[in-house]
């Protein structure tokens, strides 16, 4: 196989993901409603009770809305990645995953390309959310919109790989909803998305340590620092490391017979 074959395959998978996304436009709206509700309703209520001191990367006191925007960017990617994993299980049950796996190109390449395609859709949604956030006066530096791109791509890859890993182990579509409750909500709530870690430490030291070990915390911090044009090597390092480990496990563990790609029962 030549480089051109890989390129055509890459473009083909990306195109299909965008076409599917376009077909399911309501998903775009619903993916934005959730974080916008948090931003406009939840944050408005919390602003009164939760003071944010000056913490990096912010140079001054900030509103609670400003604080939670990076976490909500992470939330969009988190939900989209799990939705993507769900669609992989769905594809598998319907059979279209078999079409992907019948390609002569290496499976790790196909799966990583699929992750990148799903990630691209998530990143586009995050940008739309960031522009809407301007309406509630959350205004990061202009160059922050560009600087945050690598953090968003990295986060989408990490969470996409996690979704793929989960999809690999899920036998049936029905089992997926339960697993989501054990992944999405703990990951989101036990992170720095909604509250600064020092606040967590004040409330409960063990919860603070759980937040520290949660890779989503570091992904959110990578987004937060990048958006405000600061470099956080710890957050980037941990997010990158976790991404590589999850991607390796997810691609190496993608065994069609384990995922019952041929259907529910042997025939």
């Amino acid at each position, binding site marked *: 196989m030549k480089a051109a*074959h890989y390129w055509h*395959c890459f473009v083909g998978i990306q*195109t*299909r993901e965008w076409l599917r996304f376009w077909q399911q436009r309501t998903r775009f709206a619903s993916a934005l409603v959730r974080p916008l509700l948090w931003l406009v309703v939840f944050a408005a209520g919390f602003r009164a009770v939760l003071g944010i001191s000056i913490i990096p990367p912010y140079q001054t006191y900030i509103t609670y809305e400003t604080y939670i925007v990076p976490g909500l960017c992470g939330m969009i990617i988190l939900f989209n990645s799990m939705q993507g994993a769900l669609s992989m299980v769905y594809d598998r049950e319907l059979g279209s995953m078999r*079409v992907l796996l019948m390609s002569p190109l290496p499976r790790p390449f196909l799966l990583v390309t699929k992750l990148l395609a799903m990630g691209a859709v998530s990143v586009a949604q995050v940008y739309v959310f960031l522009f809407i956030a301007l309406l509630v006066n959350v205004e990061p530096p202009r160059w922050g919109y560009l600087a945050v791109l690598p953090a968003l791509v990295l986060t989408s890859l990490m969470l996409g790989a996690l979704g793929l890993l989960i999809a690999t182990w899920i036998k049936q579509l029905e089992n997926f909803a339960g697993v989501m409750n054990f992944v999405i909500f703990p990951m989101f709530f036990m992170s720095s998305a909604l509250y600064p870690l020092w606040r967590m430490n004040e409330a409960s030291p063990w919860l603070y340590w759980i937040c520290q070990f949660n890779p989503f915390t570091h992904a959110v911090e990578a987004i937060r620092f990048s958006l405000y044009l600061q470099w956080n090597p710890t957050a980037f390092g941990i997010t990158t490391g976790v991404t590589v480990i999850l991607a390796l496990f997810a691609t190496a563990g993608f065994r*069609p017979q384990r995922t019952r790609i041929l259907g529910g029962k042997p*025939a």
Partner: protein
Amino acid sequence: MTITASNLSFRYGDKPVLKEVSFTLTSGRFHALLGPNGAGKSTLFGLLTRLLALQQGDILLDGQSLRKQPAEAMRKIGVVFQQNALDLDLTVRQNLQYHAALHGLSRKQARARGDRELERFGLLERANEAVRQLNGGHRRRVEIARALLHAPSLLLLDEPTVGLDVASRKALNEHVRALCEHDNLTVLWATHLIEEVREDDRVLILHQGQLLADDAGRAICEAEGTDDLAGTFHSLTGAG
């Protein structure tokens, strides 16, 4: 293309599904893989398409091992699965272009080959319609057109007529036979329906994971002392 499968055995956990299956498919010929439900046909397809990993034995495509050179082998195989594997929300052409891209074809090549195949199947004027709008028979034709896009030498069809009415089943079967004849395509057509098999076909009868017969249909009938393939199939498998 010649396909040689040797000593294929496969088990799901403790349950053996294929037991020491060996056969050779001859270039440019229509082969019918006949077996009742649960015989192991889909598992055999899973092994031929690399969706299942070989546990024992090997498959050679023109001498190239599926185990050792999977990419080369996969380029030569086109598959139509038992279940629909088209994206219903995308158009016919978009489905074909996606498949072409997975095989490394450029958009230009995909368009040219896709249109040619759709024209052969009488579906070119419906290329921009969503697959959801097509009936079952037409969807099957699109799946076959898709499987032929990358010009494979071997076409595998796993019970392709499931869910189709009698007329559509017959038309599809005849169409694939014509492809086999005109394109020198090696075809393996898995089915449990005797009426889809002819006595001059090469017939492989699979039952409970074992290959019970592998010869021309007429020769199998003579060996079993039966009048027709239905009688032979019943005599060998107990299925009607």
